[in-house]
């Protein structure tokens, strides 16, 4: 790593403190207000501080981050970054350096960390399946290949999430299945399969309490729900045929379900091929509303207190972010953070939100109460933003 030129004075000072290492008491600090920003085109990440709205360091050497995700160790010090090229990289936020890295597959989409923090699972497109690693060393402990799709190749894994009991839950795109892998004995994981759950599950999520796993379907209008308290009940279809009768628009970017929104007793979900956010009663899983929005939603994320839901949009309407008021179930604000908004991340208690504007090479920080811009930070083609509070959330 290098204390790069782009560091602002406050950031440079903080980085210098970090670089001084852990030997000096002056360097002691927590990580609770730190985070990572993926710089997708250059294979680098920035380490950022969301109290001082500062960039602390840039770390290079992550390979192809054109699609990337990150999870955190439970001490909030290390991030595990999953790159498009199958790279799994463990980075130390305090020392701003890569401490372990393995290229474990040909093409990956994301991963998850186990409840006990000891295992990291990577979801692979190529070869289809998951691999489970020791979080301390990145030693490979087990592989779970997926069943073949219609093309004979192992189906692509999407929507991986951790579940209580050191389990990982995910969906198979071509095969139309949901799998639960129990990694209580990490070298001998046990798999529970739910077959024929629906056509082309494209992403999935787990509710914040770790009870319900929900996969979105691309191949048909609907979602699939598995109750992890009652797996014997099987996979259940919800919102079957939502928006039936209306014509579906072409989809230029798949929505993401992870980091989704539970707020006010509702779940807020992106509608596939529609300029709508679906509102679902989280007790009955019945649709209660469809809120018209600016474009096709990509991320639909609740502010941590659940009063607001923020939405960004697919190409070509990706210069806009809208805010839904949960009490009113209506859009109350539209913002233009920059060209090609790819991701949003709230601070732990939601006073501010960080937004990446890829084609303007910047991060924009907004106050979520006044919607004022608090700061702008330069970043190279920024995409995902991941703050360390994720370390303590089931499913993130």
């Amino acid at each position, binding site marked *: 790593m290098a204390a790069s030129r782009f560091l602002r004075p406050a950031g440079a000072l903080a980085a210098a403190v970090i670089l001084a290492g852990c030997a000096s008491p002056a360097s002691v600090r927590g990580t609770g207000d730190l985070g990572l920003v993926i710089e997708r085109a250059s294979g680098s990440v920035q380490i950022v501080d969301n109290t001082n709205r500062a960039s602390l360091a840039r770390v290079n050497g992550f390979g192809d981050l054109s699609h990337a995700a990150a999870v955190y160790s439970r001490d909030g010090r290390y991030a595990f970054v999953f790159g498009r*090229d199958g790279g799994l990289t463990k980075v130390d936020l305090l020392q701003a350096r890569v401490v372990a890295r393995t290229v474990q597959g040909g*093409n990956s989409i994301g991963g998850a960390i186990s409840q006990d923090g000891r295992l990291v699972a990577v979801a692979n497109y190529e070869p289809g399946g998951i691999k489970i690693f020791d979080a301390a060393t990145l030693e490979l402990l087990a592989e779970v290949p997926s069943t073949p799709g219609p093309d004979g190749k192992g189906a692509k894994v999407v929507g991986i999430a951790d579940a209580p009991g050191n389990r990982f839950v995910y969906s198979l795109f071509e095969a139309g299945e949901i799998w639960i892998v129990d990694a209580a004995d990490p070298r001998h994981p046990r798999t529970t399969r739910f077959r024929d759950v629906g056509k082309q599950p494209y992403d999935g999520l787990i509710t914040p309490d770790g009870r319900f796993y929900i996969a979105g379907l691309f191949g048909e209008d609907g979602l699939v729900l598995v109750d992890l308290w009652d797996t014997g009940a099987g996979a259940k279809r919800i919102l079957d045929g939502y928006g039936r009768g209306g014509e579906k628009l072409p989809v230029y970017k798949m929505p993401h379900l992870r980091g989704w929104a539970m707020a006010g007793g509702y779940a807020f979900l992106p509608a596939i091929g529609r300029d709508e956010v679906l509102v679902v009663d989280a007790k009955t899983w019945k649709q209660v509303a469809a809120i018209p929005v600016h474009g096709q939603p990509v991320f639909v994320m609740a502010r941590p207190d659940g009063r607001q839901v923020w939405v960004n949009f697919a190409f070509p309407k990706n210069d*806009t972010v809208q805010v839904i008021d949960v009490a009113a179930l209506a859009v109350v604000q539209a913002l233009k953070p920059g060209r090609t908004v790819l991701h949003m991340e709230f601070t732990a208690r939601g006073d501010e939100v960080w937004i990446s504007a890829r084609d303007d090479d910047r991060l924009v920080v907004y106050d979520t109460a006044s919607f004022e811009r608090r700061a702008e930070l330069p970043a190279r083609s920024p995409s995902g933003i991941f703050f360390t509070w994720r370390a303590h959330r089931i499913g993130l």
Partner: protein
Amino acid sequence: MLDARSRRPSPAPHTGRAGCRLAAALAAAAVATAAHAADPPPAREAELVRLVRQDCGSCHGMTLRGGLGPPLTPQALADRPEAMLAATIIHGRPGTAMPPWRPFVTEAEADWIASRLKRGLGDDGR
């Protein structure tokens, strides 16, 4: 209200600006048909390369080595005729996740993209 303008063309061709753009696109297509497979102007070429990497890349990967969609490298496309690729770009593939890109590229531009994909897009844009 939304005030700032999107840099990218709107898919709804009923607004004034998009209407002009559509007319321009049709004119460009007509010219391109007359002078078969004429290359787009350099500035537009750069835009198209960016579109392929960044937006086709949402599914096919920014390096075009595949994602939820199949790889679009010269090796992967070796046995696919250019005309078929261009038609897939324009019309999409019903029954799959591939959408039609007709709102954003002309047929001549799709031909150009297909030919560039067959040759390899190079490292620009990375």
